[in-house]
């Protein structure tokens, strides 16, 4: 009975994480389309939501990668998964609050690593997987997107140099509908699967599913719905940062950054390197800005984003470990997860209430 209660809490928490992943990460995918005027905000968000929903059904092959390759499966329990999710959600909300694009994927990995270490010590971490599948791609992907977007925009400007600005802008805005769509689909495919994997692991750890089982259809559908709803709910603070505060971009820059992002994600996926869409698109945006004029990039804002990237894994791990420790104070039953959940919900509600008193967050219509 107690383990079933914990499982229900874990599933609910995982879907909550998926929701925050949607409004936090997918904002990065649509930000460039919105800021260049390629699509109206509500249309871009709705389009991205649909493609995220569709993307979640495309593949289930990487659903369990996050936990299988980073922490030892022996130490995974529903409580470890729960604490890891709390770490990821907390870091997602903190960076959302500050308007910083950080990686939900790395927050999830960091949270699970932290809670696993708290549960079983550092031997629980598969160092090879953490370095080879998380840290090195985390370094390579944004730099690659930066270079590809920079090269692209330099060549694009040469090709269309003598054309009428109106024709060029209209053309690249049409192009952005496709490049933005590809990014949204890639995001749904990659990120919704991480939630599916986490729920599946919790089901296996609870004995509700056989080992190595694929995610059940209800898990896929629930994850797809949560990330799509999260996407539709906004993430306007991060849209503003990515779309206007790093560089003031034109349609060609928006297209080249999205094109570079899509190429890097697809090539990396093909070779099995999991990466963050957030890192890639922001690297692309900076590259597209720097290639036009180095001073066009607001390096102070870019520096804040880099700091958020660097902090994501250790910060989410620390919160995940803390959440595990708090949970275990109340024993191995359901009481710990229930109390930590209630405390988390109360804290989030208090923060939102305080925000509402001080003034509403950036409204959707201000896009």
């Amino acid at each position, binding site marked *: 009975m107690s383990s079933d209660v914990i499982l229900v809490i874990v599933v609910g928490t995982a879907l909550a994480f998926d929701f925050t992943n949607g409004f936090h990460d997918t904002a990065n995918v649509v930000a460039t389309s919105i800021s260049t005027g390629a699509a109206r905000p509500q249309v871009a968000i709705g389009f991205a939501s649909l493609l995220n929903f569709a993307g979640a059904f495309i*593949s289930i*092959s990487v659903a369990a990668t996050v936990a299988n390759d980073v922490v030892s499966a022996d130490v995974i329990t529903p409580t470890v998964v729960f604490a890891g999710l709390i770490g990821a959600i907390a870091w997602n909300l903190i960076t959302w609050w500050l308007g910083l694009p950080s990686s939900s994927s790395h927050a999830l990995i960091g949270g699970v690593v932290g809670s696993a270490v708290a549960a079983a010590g550092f031997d629980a971490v598969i160092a090879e997987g953490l370095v080879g599948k998380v840290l090195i791609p985390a370094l390579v992907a944004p730099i*690659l997107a930066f270079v590809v977007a920079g090269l692209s925009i330099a060549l694009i400007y040469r090709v269309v140099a003598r054309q009428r600005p109106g024709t060029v802008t209209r053309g690249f805005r049409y*192009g952005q509908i496709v490049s933005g769509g590809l990014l949204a689909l890639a995001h749904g495919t990659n990120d919704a699967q991480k939630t599916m994997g986490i729920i599946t692991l919790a089901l296996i750890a609870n004995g509700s599913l056989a080992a190595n089982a694929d995610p059940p259809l209800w898990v896929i559908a629930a994850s797809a719905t949560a990330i799509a709803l999260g996407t539709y709910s906004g993430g306007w603070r991060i849209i503003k940062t990515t779309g206007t505060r790093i560089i003031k971009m034109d349609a060609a820059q928006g297209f080249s950054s999205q094109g570079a992002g899509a190429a890097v994600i697809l*090539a990396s996926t093909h070779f099995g390197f999991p990466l963050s869409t957030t890192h890639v698109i922001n690297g692309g945006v900076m590259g597209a800005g720097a290639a036009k004029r180095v001073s066009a990039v607001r390096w102070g804002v870019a520096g804040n984003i880099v700091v958020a990237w660097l902090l994501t894994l250790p910060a989410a791990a620390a919160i995940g470990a803390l959440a595990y420790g708090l949970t275990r104070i109340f024993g191995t039953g359901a009481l710990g997860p229930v109390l930590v959940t209630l405390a988390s919900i109360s804290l989030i509600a208090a923060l939102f209430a305080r925000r509402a008193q001080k003034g509403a967050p950036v409204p959707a219509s201000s896009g």
Partner: protein
Amino acid sequence: MIATIVEGKELLETVVYSTVAGVGITVVFSIAIWGVGRFADLNREERSLAAGAAVAVAGLALAVTAAAVVIGIVVMTSK
């Protein structure tokens, strides 16, 4: 040690494929825009043969872009 953790060849291939695909597709699409722009200009100047060639270049570039997008989706769905 790093070499044993990450396959250097796969990483290099990722870099090469990303660069070729990312730069290639965006440049090809910009050629399509160039073709459309040239078509409009040449058509205004009533140079129909050159305008036809420009629109053919634009059509070809758009077809290549569309094919690349389809290949991208196939890669994504077959991972």
